[in-house]
């Protein structure tokens, strides 16, 4: 913790303070909503990054765990009356358990085959949610009562505020976990797997165990976020929550900010999510936002495959170097 704070302490403090007082200053329902969604996008991209960034396994299917968390929390709320703000943290472990099994199966594949398997995962989950209609209510979806605490619903002016703070807590935990993993031997092992899985195995890393754990951890935070999300919207249906596009969005955000870096996914979320909301707000119900997302992803992949943060830090390092020593002749 100390090391995390000592290097970037000032910036983290400022950002945290800004996020803490945000809903007190900004009373607009719209901007409060966008901020909750932005922090959620940062959670999703950061937890995707544990597997996709550190270990280098591109999953386009983590929306499956997001949706699973959403369904578990909504079901527990409707059937047992468990409050989502409490239950989501525990039900996240169920998601983690499911993810460990699916990870153990799907991580036998590599490269493009793995990507394809993860896409199929979303569709399987969606199909199950659609067809187990006596539990999940099928295509009609699940509705939860208006958010509140202790039987008293929150007033419409206040309703976004609790969600703001619980999402902020989740964001802090996710970033902290991502940082801890990155600093640990486990994290080093994941990076070794990304660089050369064969050699990583040869030097004694239990690559399968490492990959499955990374898969599980990244699913946990997705599940928790999904749980909060389902309560935030009070309505979920299979089509909506098991969406491949959700998976693509988090990948785009992580890649844009800087895949494999701690802060890249957070930065990407604070760029893409407000932009996405602006596009949807401006162009309304059309699907042009898909084109804009796809286009941005395409441009980033082609011209800045490392993402914003690594590109920036490279540039700064170059500049510092240039000041000290002569640039080496090519």
């Amino acid at each position, binding site marked *: 913790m100390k090391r995390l704070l000592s290097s970037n302490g000032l910036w983290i403090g400022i950002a945290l303070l800004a996020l803490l007082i945000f809903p007190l200053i900004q009373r607009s329902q719209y901007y409060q909503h966008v901020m909750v969604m932005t922090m959620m996008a940062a959670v999703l991209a950061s937890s995707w990054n544990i597997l996709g960034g550190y270990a280098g396994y591109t999953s386009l299917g983590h929306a499956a765990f997001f949706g699973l968390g959403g369904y578990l929390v909504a079901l527990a709320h409707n059937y047992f009356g468990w409050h989502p703000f409490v239950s989501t943290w525990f039900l996240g472990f169920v998601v983690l358990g499911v993810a460990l099994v699916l990870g153990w199966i799907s991580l036998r*594949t590599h490269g493009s085959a793995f990507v394809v398997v993860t896409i199929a995962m979303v569709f399987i989950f969606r199909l199950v949610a659609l067809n187990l209609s006596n539990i999940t209510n099928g295509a009609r979806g699940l509705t939860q009562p208006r958010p509140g605490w202790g039987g008293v619903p929150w007033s419409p002016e206040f309703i976004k505020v609790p969600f703001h703070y619980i999402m902020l807590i989740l964001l802090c935990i996710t970033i902290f976990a991502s940082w801890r993993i990155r600093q640990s031997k486990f994290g080093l092992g994941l990076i070794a797997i990304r660089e050369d899985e064969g050699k990583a195995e040869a030097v004694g890393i239990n690559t399968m165990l490492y990959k499955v754990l990374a898969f599980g951890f990244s699913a946990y935070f997705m599940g928790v976020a999904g749980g909060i999300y389902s309560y935030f919207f009070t309505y979920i249906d299979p089509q909506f929550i098991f969406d491949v596009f959700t998976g693509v969005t988090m990948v785009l955000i992580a890649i844009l900010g800087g895949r494999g870096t701690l802060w890249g996914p957070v930065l990407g979320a604070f760029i893409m999510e407000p932009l996405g909301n602006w596009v949807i707000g401006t162009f309304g119900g059309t699907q042009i936002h*898909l084109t804009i997302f*796809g286009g941005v992803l395409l441009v980033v992949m082609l011209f800045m495959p490392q993402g914003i943060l690594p590109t920036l830090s490279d540039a700064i390092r170059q500049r510092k170097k240039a000041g000290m020593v002569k640039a080496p002749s090519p």
Partner: protein
Amino acid sequence: MTLPSTHLLIQTIILGLLVGGVYALMSSGLTLIFGVMRVINVAHGAFLILAAYSTYWLFQLTGLDPIISIALTAPLLFGLGWVIQRYILSRIENPERSSVIITFALAVTLEGLMGTFWKTTIRSVKPEYASEVLKFASYRFPVTRLAGFAAALLVLLILYLILQRTNLGRAIRATIQDRNAAQLVGVNVQMVSAVTFGIGIATAAAGGSLLSMIYSFNASSQTDWITRVLSVIVLGGMGSLPGAFVAAIILGVMEQLTAVVVTLYWSPIVFYLFLFLTLIFRPQGLMGEIVREKA
């Protein structure tokens, strides 16, 4: 779950075979592209839908028959494919690692454009013979599916002749076998890649034109179709054309059987389960070689 009668079972298998032929056409281009370029073109489903919309448009404006419109959609999409390979895909430095994300981005971009232009209304092309059914020994053959199957076989035959009988085909096959060796003996691999991508997308165009009269679709159907065709080529063995053909028939029949024996709603799961199981237990597929991919 009820066990159907023999008559219903045979009828179902017939429908499965007919649909399987169309699946074979749709996935042939995908497996060819993978064979030559080691690129999984996730945008294949989007190209199918693009062709389906073009066919729908042509039919609405001029009344052109969906099967005949292949003669227009295929060259059009060949050109589009060639351009995309030449100016986007050829720039990728590490295709095995990033081509999936790039083609996915392409798919999302196309889906957004199609959704914007053609809205979300579910479409389908209904030529005059749309509801006609041929009867043969008490078995029913819907005319659209029969025609689709015949057209699919015809296009596949043309593809086969191009691959086996022309110099271009020889160059493509050589590149599939060994890219470097092909280059050494004078094959212009860059050119072959661009042309293969074009041909692959052209077969998707033919498949999409047939799709438009057999199924209903809108822009977001592309995600459903890409998983289907991906399952086909994974089961068949990525890069293997005969494999894709066999797998398409198997999956077509299995899908129809699930629809009858279980329910219609569960039938798409056949594709996802086969995809999952193949990649785990037989990653090389039915007829593919083991490709060591670097993760």
